C-alpha cells in the first residue's frame, strides 16, 4: 500500500560512520516515523543546488516512533551520498516519504528468514524490529566481503538469531551468503524469506524460494527520478512481461512476481 507521504525539511540529529564509507544517519521526521512501514523508502535531496539534480532513494532503516526519528544506513557511492555524509547535526535535509510498498506480513507469530548482503541489510532492520515485536521467530543471515562490511549485526541480534558469513572469513564463516542460505533452508523450516542485496543475491533467493517452496519477498533497486510513480523511469519486468514501477508497486516484490535480469 502507498499511504500518505509528505515533503518535509528534516533536521539531522546524528550522523555516525559505522564502517569505511558507511554511515548511520538519524533524522527528526515525526510524520514519516508515524506513517512508515518496513521496506518503504524516502527520496532525499542530496544537494543545495541542481547538482545532483535528482533526489536519492534510501530505505528506512530504523524507526524510533516515540521519539519521532528515523534512521538511514547508507554507503557512499557517488556525489549524492558523499554530500549527505558531510552534513552535520542541526543541518536540514529535504525528504519525500514514506514511499512505495514495503514488506507484507501477517500479524501472527511465524518463522522468518532475513537475508541481507552488505548494505542490503538497510531495509531489514526496521522489518526485524517490527516482526520481533509481533513475536516472530527470526534468523538473520548477513553476508559481506569482509568483517568491517558486516553492518548492524548487534542490532539484528536483539531481534533473533544472527549468522554471519564473509568472503574472506574475517567475521563468522568463510564463504558466500547463498551457500549459507541454502544450508539454512535445508536444515530449518521457515514460513517466509525476506531479502535485500545485489542482483546475484536476489536471484539466488528467487531460485531457492522456488526450490524449497518457501515464499520470498525481495527489495529491488532501480534508478529513480520522481519516486512517487509519476515518471515511469524506475521499472522492472513482471512475470507477464509488463513493467512495474519499483517506486510504487515495489520496492518490495514477491520473488515470483518479477523477472530479474543481468
Amino acid at each position: 500500500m502507498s499511504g500518505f507521504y509528505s515533503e518535509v525539511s528534516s533536521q539531522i540529529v546524528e550522523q555516525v560512520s559505522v564502517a569505511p564509507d558507511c554511515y548511520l544517519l538519524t533524522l527528526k521526521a515525526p510524520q514519516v516515523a508515524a506513517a512508515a512501514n518496513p521496506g518503504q523508502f524516502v527520496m532525499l535531496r542530496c544537494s543545495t543546488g541542481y547538482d545532483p539534480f535528482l533526489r536519492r532513494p534510501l530505505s528506512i532503516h530504523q524507526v524510533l516512533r516515540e521519539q519521532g526519528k528515523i534512521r538511514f544506513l547508507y554507503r557512499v557511492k557517488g556525489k549524492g551520498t558523499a554530500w549527505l555524509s558531510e552534513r552535520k547535526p542541526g543541518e536540514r535535509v529535504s525528504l519525500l516519504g514514506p514511499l512505495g510498498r514495503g514488506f507484507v506480513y501477517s500479524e501472527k507469530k511465524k518463522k522468518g528468514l532475513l537475508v541481507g548482503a552488505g548494505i542490503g541489510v538497510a531495509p531489514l532492520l526496521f522489518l526485524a524490529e517490527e516482526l520481533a515485536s509481533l513475536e516472530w521467530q527470526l534468523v538473520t543471515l548477513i553476508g559481506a566481503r569482509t568483517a568491517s562490511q558486516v553492518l548492524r549485526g548487534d542490532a539484528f541480534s536483539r531481534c533473533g538469531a544472527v549468522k554471519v558469513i564473509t568472503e574472506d572469513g574475517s567475521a563468522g564463516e568463510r564463504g558466500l551468503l547463498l551457500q549459507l542460505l541454502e544450508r539454512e533452508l535445508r536444515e530449518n523450516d521457515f514460513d517466509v524469506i525476506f531479502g535485500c542485496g545485489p542482483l546475484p543475491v536476489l536471484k539466488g533467493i528467487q531460485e531457492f524460494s522456488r526450490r524449497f517452496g518457501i515464499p520470498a519477498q525481495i527489495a529491488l533497486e532501480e534508478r529513480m527520478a520522481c519516486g512517487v510513480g509519476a515518471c515511469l523511469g524506475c521499472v522492472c519486468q513482471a512475470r507477464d512481461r509488463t513493467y512495474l514501477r519499483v517506486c510504487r508497486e515495489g520496492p518490495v516484490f514477491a520473488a515470483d512476481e518479477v523477472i530479474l535480469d543481468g
Partner: protein
Amino acid sequence: MVDLSVEIAGIRMKNPVMVASGTFGFGLEYAQLFDLSRLGAIVTKALTVEPWPGNPPPRIWETPAGLLNAIGLQNPGVEVFADEILPELKKFDIPVIANIAGFTKEEFAELASRLTGTGVSGLEVNISCPNVKAGGMVFGTVPELAAEVVEAVVSSTSLPVIVKLTPNVTDIVAVAKAVVEAGAHALSLINTLLGMAIDIHRKKPVLANVTGGLSGPAIRPVAVRAVWQVSQAVDVPVVGMGGICTGSDALEFILAGATAVAVGSANFYDPLSSVKVVEEIENYCIEHGVESLHELVGAAWKN
C-alpha cells in the same frame, strides 16, 4: 490583485503554470501533496491508441543539472484513460490537457476523435517524442509530415489543439509555421533534446534504448531561444518549457514570448515547484507593478 489568468487556444487557465507531460503522471500521484487546482492546467503522460509497454530499463540517467530519459511512451492506452483515470482527474477544478502520441497519422486522428467529448480541455499533440523509433520524431522533424498530422488531428476534433515541437531540428521556426498553417491553435516547446551517455566500465550505452531525451535546467537556454524565435514568427500562443525550476525561470520564458509555461523535470527535484512558480510569478508582478501577465508576454522583443 494581479491577474494571472491566461487563455491558450480557448483553454482558460487561472494562472499560466502547467505541468509538463510525462513528469507528473496523470496528476493523481501528486494530489495528496498539494491541491492540484492551484495549477493552471495538467498535461497528462502521452496516450496511445493501445496500451503501450514502453522501453526496457534502465530508462533514466542523471546528467549535470538534468537527466536523460527513454520511457518510450508507457501508458495504459486511451480507453483506460478516458474510462478510469479522467473521471478521477475531473474531480479537481483544473483543465486537463491530454498529450497524444500516434505511430501513424491515422492513429493521431483516432486519438483526437476518441478524446473529444470526454471532458478533456484540449489536446497536446506529441509529434516530438525522441524515444520511439517508429513514431514521433519523424513527424516533428519534417515540416510537411508535421503538418499532415496536425491536419488529421484538427479535422477529427473540436477540441483546442496544441502542437508540441521538438528542438532536434535545424529550423524550429519552419516546423512551427507549417503546423500553424495546418491549423494548430497553439504550440508548446520544447520537448527533450536527443542525447546519450556511455558507461565507461561496461563500455556500453547506459540506457537500454541507447539514446534518450535530455531535460532539466541544463536545457533551459536552448528552450528560451526556441520560444524567442517561434513566438515572433507565429500568431498563436506558445507554451514554454525546458528546465523551469523557479518563478524567475518561468518569467524568462514569458518575456521571451510564452503565454503559459510548463514545469517538468523540476517536479523530481521538488514536487512542489510548480505551485512555488505560481507564487513567485505573482510576487514578481506585485513588485514590478504588473497588473496583468499579458503585459509581460514577449516584452523582451516587443518594443
